[in-house]
């Protein structure tokens, strides 16, 4: 077994692209669930919003606008416009679609509708109908939108950086990702310590109490839904740039569940929880994945137990089981404080 590659993949998981993407999405989910009590099971669709907002602006909507209106928008103009569409416009639209029908109702309704919206988006985006395919390119997804980003990279594309962990482009993406992540965490920290964050917590504890004290619970929940969605969209955009493709299968419902695991692992309702949780999750996932794969290919694990294709499946099984066990036995997260949870009388 090649322990070098196992350890390499462990570190990649702890600090790499996937960690950044899921930490950002989990920061958003923490605003939703951890602070406001919103059961969002469609975080993947906010991530997809970021990915597709950017990809469609650069690859399909922008060029179509150039063709039809005789504009001459350059790719880099479209890139920045795409960031705006992906980070602001799409998430706001999705949040309204999810929130307007459900935020006045009991919490479970939002859970159902968020999944439904995520599924609607996935089905529509991967539809092979020509009218839709020309904008989203069906299940193959959109490419050719990340050039502007990598052009800005100061790193050599042929070199490897940080103990050979990343290529030049990956290094650039990861550094930008860390900066964005630090910024997001700082914003979240400020928000939670403000009177605004206090209202969110009050709504999580008891919406009626907040309303009786003159707080417009509906409006605050909508603000939280939008803001958390925006963090998710930033994460999804980084994922798409990292893969250089925006594909529907990168944003399936299971992706949402990964974000939940990251959040609950770190302990919902704490500012650093999403970052710690995502790092732990991807460290563990990458470690177990490479470990099992190495085990299979070195025939330490016989084919009768597991083949190469089944490694991914076992990984998902362990994650599902982990999520269930965590929620049942340590809902306060790995490092959480039991006292605080004991007050939970919901």
């Amino acid at each position: 077994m090649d322990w070098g590659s196992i350890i390499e993949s462990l570190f990649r998981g702890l600090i790499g692209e996937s960690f950044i993407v899921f930490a950002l999405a989990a920061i958003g989910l923490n605003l939703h669930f951890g602070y406001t009590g919103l059961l969002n099971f469609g975080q993947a669709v906010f991530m997809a919003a970021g990915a597709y907002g950017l990809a469609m602006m650069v690859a399909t909507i922008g060029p179509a606008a150039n063709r039809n209106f005789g504009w001459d928008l350059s790719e880099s103009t479209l890139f920045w416009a795409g960031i705006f569409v992906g980070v602001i416009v799409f998430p706001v639209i999705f949040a309204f679609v999810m929130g307007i029908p459900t935020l006045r109702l009991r919490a479970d309704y939002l859970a159902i509708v968020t999944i439904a919206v995520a599924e609607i988006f996935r089905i529509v985006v991967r539809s092979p109908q020509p009218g839709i395919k020309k904008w989203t390119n069906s299940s193959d997804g959109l490419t050719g939108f990340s050039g502007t980003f990598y052009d800005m990279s100061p790193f050599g594309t042929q070199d490897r950086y940080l103990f050979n962990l990343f290529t030049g482009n990956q290094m650039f993406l990861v550094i930008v990702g860390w900066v964005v992540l630090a910024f997001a965490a700082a914003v979240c920290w400020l928000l939670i310590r403000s009177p605004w964050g206090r209202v969110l917590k009050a709504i999580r504890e008891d919406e009626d109490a907040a309303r009786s004290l003159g707080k417009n619970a509906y409006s605050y929940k909508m603000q939280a839904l939008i803001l958390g969605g925006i963090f998710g969209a930033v994460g999804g955009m980084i994922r798409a740039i990292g893969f250089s493709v925006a594909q529907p299968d990168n944003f399936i419902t299971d992706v949402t569940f990964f974000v939940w695991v990251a959040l609950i692992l770190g302990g919902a309702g704490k500012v650093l929880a999403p970052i710690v949780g995502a790092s732990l999750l991807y460290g563990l996932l990458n470690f177990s994945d490479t470990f099992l794969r190495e085990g299979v290919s070195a025939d330490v694990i016989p084919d009768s137990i597991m083949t190469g294709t089944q490694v991914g499946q076992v990984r998902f099984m362990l994650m599902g089981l982990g999520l269930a066990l965590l929620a049942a036995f340590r809902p306060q997260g790995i490092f959480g404080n039991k006292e605080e949870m004991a007050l939970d009388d919901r």
Partner: protein
Amino acid sequence: MTGNNFEDQLKDELIPDAGPIAGPPGDSSDMSVVTSEKLALVDSEAARAALADVPWEPGAKKPDPILVADNVVRRFGGLTAVDAEHVEVQRGVITALIGPNGAGKTTFFNLLTNFDTPDEGTRVFDGHNIDNVPAHKIANYGMVRTFQLTKALSKMTVIENMKLGATGQKGETLWRSVLPFMWKSQEKEIEARADALLERFKLSHMRDEFAGTMSGGQRKLLEMARALMVEPTMVMLDEPMAGVNPALTQSLLGHVTGLRDAGMTVLFVEHDMDMVQEISDWVIVMAEGRIIAEGPPATIGQNQAVVDAYLGSHHDSALDLDVEL
């Protein structure tokens, strides 16, 4: 905590008078609503005296009503839970809303505070028609309610609970919240006001504890103190004595009458007839969703309609009205 001048000065005063702490008038546009409401606070002695001329009958007109409900009907499926023809609540007094189990008191209470929407009818609070006003806006008009099952926000500290109650907070706007310098000074004022109230309700020692660690009675006190952070003109209490340790009863009663003496209007729903007799100035009796009697507390036990309602709903011959109510 720094003991600043006006805070000490206010310790023995009643809190609604603590207006200046929230900042001078014109400090923020939202505050002007509250300040104008404060002018509406009245001399409670005069308000009580005015009740002497009011006839003892359901739907009686009051000399200075703060809350008026007309033809309020609420149905659940085929069941009509509330059908109140006309109710007025006198400003500056304590009004009790009583009735046997299932009389629709709590439903009516929710309708008056807009936590539930009636199928028909109009409600006017202090000159505002509140029929289509969302529940949270009622607080800005100066009406604040508590709940039968106390809603202390248990995973927030006591002081956080208190600070939440203040209205017109600049830091509650999303874009301002990330710029602490925009709201820090107002936050300090709110905190001072909250500490003064905690002192008055003898909760200062719990200041930084989670509200979830408090006893039932302390939660009731916290909820009442938090409601006062809104600076209301009218306080609506849903069964303020339910689940309170008898040792705390007197102190709670004192706080309720204190609200009236400070010029606020109080409406409360209650089962405990002792409390009704002791502190209320006026009693409204409901049975089967209707208002069946009104009058001063001393007279209500002799009202035939009331006795019938309680006896009829229980099929219990030897009934001590005091206990049963």
